[in-house]
């Protein structure tokens, strides 16, 4: 389980902890650190924070200011290290010197620098699939023109501003490049607290020791997102969390929720939550209330920013909140560790922490005016990728509610499945789908037989390998809506054997026959290439218990192969009986 931090920590506490750190047995997280600042103060903090998150840190610290050397040399220690994340940290100190000595037209400085940085990314990406985490540059504080400098075209401040913008733009255009917004952190701390000239002079430190834990945490947050860690749902209390007062006592007209001074805070918090929802984070309600009374506020109160339809699951009753959060989890089919619980009541927070330790439960301040700040400061919603599908996610759960309602009208499953008019498109990997494919491989934990997190670049090379690979996807629609691309299967074949390297499915489409459809495809392919066997493997993790008997259900037998990774299965192609599915296969959805 990868755990996000719910509090910020002190440099001295962390560096002492680093000295007596015992590394966990969990999976490794290999991080390479390079830059034109030193990493010696940062590395111990990363060791602790990565360990706290449940991974086993393995760090490589490149020599001071050797980014280009490491990047351009195919035999460099960087590549030999086989990193899973490459962190490039660059300070404004060296940049300032380069700017002051720049021989040409200083207006070209930012583009020059940005082009050089991009060239380094490309060199790295041509040699490894590991994502690059590029820092932004901290804006300098000196102003030779005073405020008038903003009106000038060739100041250091202007050059760094433009350089950062160019880095944003170029990162968008370069796959596998993520940004570590160090300038944001500096602004948050205050540049005067963040920038530490003495520490730079003494040990080439990027920033003050006081600010360093935040830089480390930022790197770990992004690193965890790359490893598939994502918050998917925010579970919300109602009374004194979304509005002021207790609706059961105060009534719909009595709760605080409007533009007046005291309650602007609740509206601001709701607006923040609605932005999260638009970005694809699901919202659920978990409240001790009468459901009808609680829903009434969502429908009727003019001050409510969040509406009924923004809430994917609404639970209001008098049972304990831990049971209700489990209920929400079951309904959404997500892991408890992808849920955040926000409640003003310390008793409820502690109860949930106690009974459901996987759920993230941040402290909420007493003053609702500080809710947005408290949640935002924790940076819980970091992401390593984004697609429009993310934004559509909450709509999909709403469609599911409608399907569930429909289901109650049918007494037999076949009749129900037929009524859904499900259509599926099965296709070899296509370039336009690669991002979504990689995302599904990164994020799926439950319906995932081998949990092999092939990065996007590797998916692209498998896509092109017609000889030995058949990687395919299934995209599904039904009468109620579009599920999108929800299944990825990667087959490799050699001699008489087709091997299922990866079989991943989104839990949104369980029990719809998609896995049967995909397995039929696997065996059709095996027959087409003249294979005798299809082999597969189940590699157990803490989360994929739901597919424990996956191969057995399709008639595979356990057999032993050379590898001792998980359990190997095999089935003769001739002995497979194609499964009947209530899904029409289509060539396109037009």
């Amino acid at each position, binding site marked *: 389980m990868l755990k996000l931090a719910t509090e910020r920590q002190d440099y*001295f506490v962390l560096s002492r902890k680093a*000295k007596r750190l015992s590394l966990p047995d969990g999976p490794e997280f290999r991080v390479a650190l390079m830059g034109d600042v030193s990493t*010696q103060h940062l590395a111990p903090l990363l060791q602790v924070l990565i360990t706290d998150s449940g991974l086993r840190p393995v760090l490589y610290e490149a020599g001071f200011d050797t980014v280009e050397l490491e990047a351009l040399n195919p035999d460099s220690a960087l590549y030999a290290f086989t990193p899973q994340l490459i962190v490039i940290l660059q300070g404004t100190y060296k940049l300032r010197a380069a700017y002051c000595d720049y021989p040409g037209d200083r207006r070209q400085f930012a583009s020059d620098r940005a082009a050089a940085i991009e060239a380094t990314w490309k060199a790295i990406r041509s040699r490894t699939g590991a994502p690059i985490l590029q820092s932004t540059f901290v804006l300098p504080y000196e102003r030779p023109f005073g405020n008038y400098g903003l009106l000038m075209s060739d100041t250091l401040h202007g050059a760094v501003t433009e350089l950062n913008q160019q880095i944003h733009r170029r990162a968008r255009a370069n796959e596998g490049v993520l940004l570590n917004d160090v300038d944001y952190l500096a602004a948050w701390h205050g540049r005067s607290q963040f920038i530490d000239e003495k520490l730079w002079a*003494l040990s080439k430190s990027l920033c003050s020791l006081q600010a360093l834990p935040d830089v480390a945490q930022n790197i770990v947050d992004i690193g965890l997102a790359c490893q598939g860690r994502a918050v998917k749902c925010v579970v919300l209390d109602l009374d004194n969390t979304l509005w002021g007062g207790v609706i059961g006592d105060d009534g719909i007209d009595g709760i605080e929720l409007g533009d007046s001074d005291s309650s602007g805070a609740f509206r601001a918090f709701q607006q923040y939550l609605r932005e999260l929802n638009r970005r694809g984070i699901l919202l659920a309600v978990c409240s001790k209330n009468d459901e009808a009374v609680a829903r009434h506020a969502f429908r009727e109160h003019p001050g409510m920013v969040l509406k009924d339809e923004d809430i994917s699951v609404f639970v209001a009753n008098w049972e304990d909140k831990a049971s209700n959060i489990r209920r929400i989890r079951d309904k959404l089919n997500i892991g408890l560790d992808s849920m955040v619980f926000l409640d003003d009541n310390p008793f409820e927070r502690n109860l949930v922490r106690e009974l459901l330790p996987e759920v993230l439960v941040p402290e909420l301040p007493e003053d609702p005016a500080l809710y947005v700040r408290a949640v935002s400061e924790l940076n819980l919603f970091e992401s390593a990728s984004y697609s429009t599908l993310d934004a559509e996610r909450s709509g999909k759960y709403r469609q599911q509610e409608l399907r569930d309602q429909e289901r109650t009208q049918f007494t037999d499953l076949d009749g129900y499945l037929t009524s859904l008019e499900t259509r599926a498109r099965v296709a070899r990997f296509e370039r336009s789908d690669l991002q979504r494919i990689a995302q599904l491989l990164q994020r799926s934990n439950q319906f995932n037989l081998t949990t092999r997190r092939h990065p996007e670049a590797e998916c692209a090379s498998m896509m092109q390998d017609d000889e030995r690979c058949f990687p395919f996807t299934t995209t599904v629609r039904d009468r109620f809506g579009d599920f999108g691309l929800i299944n990825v299967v990667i087959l490799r074949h050699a001699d008489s054997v087709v091997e299922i390297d990866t079989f991943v499915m989104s839990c949104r489409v369980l029990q719809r026959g998609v896995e049967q459809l995909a397995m039929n495809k696997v065996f059709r392919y095996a027959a087409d290439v003249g294979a005798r066997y299809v082999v597969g493997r189940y590699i157990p993790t803490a989360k994929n218990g739901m597919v424990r008997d996956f191969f057995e259900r399709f008639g595979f037998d356990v057999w032993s192969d050379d590898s001792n990774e998980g359990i190997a299965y095999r089935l003769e192609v001739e002995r497979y009986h194609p499964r009947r599915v209530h899904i029409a296969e289509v060539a396109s959805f037009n």
Partner: protein
Amino acid sequence: MSTAEIHARLTQVMREHFESPLLVVDASTTAEQVEGWDSVAHVGLIVAVEKAFGVRFTTKEVKSLDTVGDLLALLERRSA
């Protein structure tokens, strides 16, 4: 603050910083004699000492420190 007080306070800061509750230092103690006092811990120690004594050293002062005695002398000058 007297010399003895500065010494006692500094000892306390160093004990905490190096997690060594019984650490004893005198003016002749050097970094090599204290477990864990490497270049990374040195910078941390300076920041911790500055915080504890409410002073800021110059870069040059920090660079010129070789022994605990140097640090004590510096603190004495600052709190004079």
